[in-house]
């Protein structure tokens, strides 16, 4: 692909393109028999997090991911893919069930971040994210994460503590949006492109520093056509990876996840 000359910020813009597939497209093309589960059993159903059970090949998996919309109406409903604490609590509930039934977990990441709102804070946004990360650390079933669009901040991390983390070629994963990063460090949100260059947020960067385990090529013509070849290859790869992970013991899976994240960091000892 052309890809040598693509700047980091161009990747950010592609990752945000509203014509990219969203979680419901992926579920429809990769899985069958999807049964959607709603609600956190506490107070509400957060449409920014979609979850349920589906068959990947012949294997039941728990599917969880961020939902972005294409139209304004859809985006109002799913809050532009920015979850509330209740969304993470729904994710935790579904992960607990996955553990109970020995189902692997497949997550899809595409969010500008957790919603920075008044009610979200009142209902414990930080606590909900922390619990979701903690729940993922405790799972003894395989966890596979696919970063499909933009993965920003704790809102993305909350559902991506995985044994294998794969990124689409034009997806990004970062501590914060480049706009937010520039605003914090330089008090100038318009320097997002400079920020993107520094942040090491592309799939290639993340593979390089051990966060991502595989980069998935996107259709050469973009996501304009039916993308049948793309989905077919992706489904085969996901099934093969789940086969590989399911062959491991529960203790190995849990320890493997610990070791993966334990090793990430750069410091002087």
């Amino acid at each position, binding site marked *: 692909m052309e890809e040598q000359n693509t700047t980091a910020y161009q990747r950010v813009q592609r990752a945000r393109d509203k014509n990219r597939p969203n979680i419901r497209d992926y579920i429809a093309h990769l899985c069958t028999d999807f049964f959607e589960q709603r609600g956190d059993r506490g107070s509400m159903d957060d449409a920014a997090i979609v979850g349920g059970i589906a068959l990947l090949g012949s294997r039941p998996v728990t599917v969880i991911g961020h939902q972005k919309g294409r139209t304004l109406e859809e985006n109002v409903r799913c809050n532009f893919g920015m979850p509330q604490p209740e969304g993470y609590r729904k994710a935790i509930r579904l992960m607990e069930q996955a553990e109970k039934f020995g189902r692997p977990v497949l997550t899809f990441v595409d969010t500008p971040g957790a919603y*920075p709102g008044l009610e979200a804070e009142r209902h414990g*946004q930080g606590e909900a994210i922390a619990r979701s990360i903690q729940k993922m650390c405790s799972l003894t079933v395989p966890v596979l994460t696919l970063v499909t669009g933009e993965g920003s*901040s704790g809102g993305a991390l909350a559902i991506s*503590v995985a044994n294998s983390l794969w990124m689409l070629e034009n997806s990004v994963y970062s501590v*914060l949006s480049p706009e937010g990063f520039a605003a914090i460090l330089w008090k100038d949100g318009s320097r997002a492109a400079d920020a993107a260059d520094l942040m090491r947020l592309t799939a290639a960067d993340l593979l390089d520093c051990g966060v991502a385990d595989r980069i998935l090529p996107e259709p050469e013509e973009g996501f304009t056509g039916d993308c049948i070849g793309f989905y077919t290859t992706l489904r085969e790869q996901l099934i093969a990876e789940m086969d590989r992970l399911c062959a491991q013991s529960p203790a190995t899976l849990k320890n493997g996840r610990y070791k993966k994240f334990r090793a990430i*960091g*750069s*410091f002087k000892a």
Partner: protein
Amino acid sequence: MDSNMFHKRREKLDLFKAFRNKTVQVQEKPVPDDLYTKCPSCGSPILSTRFREMLRVCPHCGGHSVLGARDRLAATVDEGSFRELFGQMAANDPLHFPGYAEKLSGLEKKTGLREAVVTGTGKVGGYRMAIAVMDSRFIMGSMSSAVGEKITLLAEYAAKKRLPLIVFCASGGARMQEGIFSLMQMAKTTAAVERLAEAGCLYVTVLTNPTTGGVTASFASLGDIILAEPGALIGFAGPRVIEQTIKQKLPEGFQRAEFLCDCGFVDAVVPRGQLRDTLAQILKLHSREGR
């Protein structure tokens, strides 16, 4: 005689006037700069020695101002019992972020700290424990790889030695200069805290001003018992970001320790002067003796 009387009176008055107008050259004794400290909350001058005795809590308004990690340890841990662990660890510059290396070396000189957290073991009220204290003077106590690594190592040490772990949190969140490496420390520290829980060890967090962002969304919110200092700002998103998002002013006291306690996310708001005794009480309640 009468005129004489007036004359004398005039003389006296002149003398008095001269005395009154006399400018006396007095050697001014300068007030030492550090004799008084201005309270950052209410602005009142406080005798510095008294301010230190009060652990930097204002006697006038009760405002809890920044307490450095070393002072916090001195105020919390039994005298002579603290043993520092992983003290040599320091930040790297993985993104080659402009100005970051200079900032780090400048802060090391200014604060005497190599990173935003000090870790070690000691006793509180006679009970052995592992302790981490974050210091907001070091890039707002932000989570670098080194901060994440130190907290992870300490949690692993506590799990291995079956010690309770106490973490004093003070953090603005992620260390932006370390990008994705900073974000990943949330997963790393949380995984270590989860292992500590599986080992059956007590984990207590004390949220001090401020505890926000990635620290709130990881190890700070996962204590078996969560304490907070009065007035501490605690949240995930910062108040300015929320105001920009919802386009209205936040209510008074929003995201403060007392509010978090009312919302059910903090067990108790404990004034600084009582924290040591409260921690000793919690350790006593979890002591293995008598079980």
